[in-house]
């Protein structure tokens, strides 16, 4: 379906995007508003305007430490998840064997099972191995719940065209490894990227697994946020959440200015174009 050049089409599109934006951002406006409170509790509409909570959060070493830990764990976990998930997706894409459908669904189990049960199972498992409280176990726990995202998304992006192109390449004399490197992987790239982004975010946001597996000294960011919500109730949490939103937007702008977003999100079309 060509993007009609007509004005009505453009207006409809813009209106639609606006609608989605309102839906997706609505609670975040509340969060940003709450973060500007001068008072020490989460009033909405905000009572007085102040940046004190941003200051409090940015200067507090505990929040900074939690942020660092969460970023580090998420980076390692999502990397490992990307590898395992991509390979698995390629195997499932080509494979024809009985029970394939069941296996595709089965790989989603870590997402389907509520985090409390997975966390409890991992807790007892790692406790038996005496690995509780190590970052190693924490990373492994995060890999378990994030690699299904990569696998499923990559599988979904390996459309039928991939097979045609692969066939064409092999007819032209490329062996499997070259085909894999030059045809399959680039075609799967948007899927791999999307899946890894999901894996990173899921790991970064994770509460239940982390609650059970973190070391005494390690307090990940979502745990600190949860504790704060339960036991402090100041707008500091709103401030940190708003900071993330601004950071993401800023990051996107920086990427656009320097490398160019097209390197990340792909050119306008893929394939023969």
């Amino acid at each position, binding site marked *: 379906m060509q993007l009609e050049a007509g004005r009505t089409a453009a207006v409809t599109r813009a209106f639609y995007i606006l609608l989605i934006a309102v839906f997706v951002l609505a609670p975040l406006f509340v969060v940003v508003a709450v973060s500007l409170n001068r008072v020490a509790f989460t009033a909405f509409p905000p009572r007085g305007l102040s940046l004190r909570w941003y200051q409090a959060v940015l200067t507090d070493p505990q929040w900074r430490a939690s942020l660092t830990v969460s970023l580090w764990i998420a980076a390692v976990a999502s990397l490992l998840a990307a590898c395992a998930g991509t390979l698995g997706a390629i195997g499932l894409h080509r494979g024809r064997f009985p029970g394939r459908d069941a296996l595709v669904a089965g790989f989603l189990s870590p997402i389907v099972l509520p*985090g409390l049960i997975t966390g409890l199972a991992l807790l007892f498992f790692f406790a038996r191995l005496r690995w509780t409280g190590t970052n190693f176990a924490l990373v492994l726990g995060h890999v378990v719940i994030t690699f299904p995202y990569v696998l499923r998304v990559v599988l979904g992006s390996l459309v039928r065209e991939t097979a045609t192109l692969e066939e064409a390449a092999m007819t032209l*004399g490329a062996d499997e490894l070259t085909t894999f490197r030059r045809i399959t992987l680039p075609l799967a790239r948007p899927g791999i990227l999307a899946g890894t982004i999901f894996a990173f975010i899921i790991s970064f946001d994770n509460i239940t697994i982390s609650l059970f597996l973190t070391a005494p000294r390690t307090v990940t960011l*979502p745990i600190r946020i*949860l504790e704060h919500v339960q036991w402090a109730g100041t707008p500091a949490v709103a401030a940190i959440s708003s900071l993330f939103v601004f950071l993401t937007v800023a990051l996107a702008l920086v990427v656009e200015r320097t490398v160019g977003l097209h390197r990340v999100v792909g050119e306008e079309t893929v*394939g023969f174009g």
Partner: protein
Amino acid sequence: MSNVIPRGWPTGRPDRLLRLAARALRRLANAVLFRSRASTLIQLSPGLLILVALFALPLLFLAWVSLWRHSPNSFGPTPLTLENYRRFLFDGFFLRSILRTLQLGIVTTLVTLALGYPLALIMARSTARVRGFLLVLVLTPLMVSVVVRVFGWMVILGDTGLINKALLALGLIDQPLRIMNTMAAVVIGLAQVEFAFMVLPIFSALLGVGRSLEEAAATLGASPWRVFRHVVLPLSLPGVAAGSALVFSLSVSAFVQPQLLGGSSFFVMTTLMYQQITATLNWPFGAAIGFIILGTALLTLILLGVAMRKISPRRAGHAT
């Protein structure tokens, strides 16, 4: 045997040995990774290893726990019994919660699909800059912790919340609309964050659909709508399947949104399970509920996958 010579391959004599070694390694890799009978298994092995060693194995302990008989103030093995499963599966109250859970999953999937597919289309056909903007837009809710997000929704959807205040002020209603503590509020809260999980897979799949295919179909005289319906839509179905599977799974296992937005009377399997693990401390029963969640959701996902395959047009040898 003609191998396409990769760009930059060394041709000097000192590298001949290296070339031979590399070629042998390449043949080995091809044979093992791609051509052998076990190649699929090898590709799947990291994923399977994680699934079995780090997921199924730890769950075995909880499966055993689910067969214990619970007694307060103690936690230890008892003679095995299926009582916990029987208690859940043979009771109208709990069976209704299964239905409600599946209903929540399906409704959320349909809502995100209806809203997300057009956006994925727009993204696929836009410039990189617009695409990047939409990507950030869709991912932003995930940047914010779930408890914070849900408190935001409570402020908006509550009886004294923003929506009601606005509607009352405009005179459109004279009694506050009950949005909080209904399934609608939970779907809204879930859809907002699961939106990205539907849009991105569809977007990725659409990127794989060559524009030339559409142009060819259009040249052959098909209207834009027919091109979409018979070319683009079917070829994007793997993405739709992936997005739907993710959204459904996330909805079924969600806890915070059903508890805080659905209210105490909104019983889904996950909230009932949490109750058993944290409030009644009846871990055997809680573990049993967990496995029932896993079973019913996986069953639904398998059925969904089979249905998807039946809908999508068949091509010899490479159906999804």
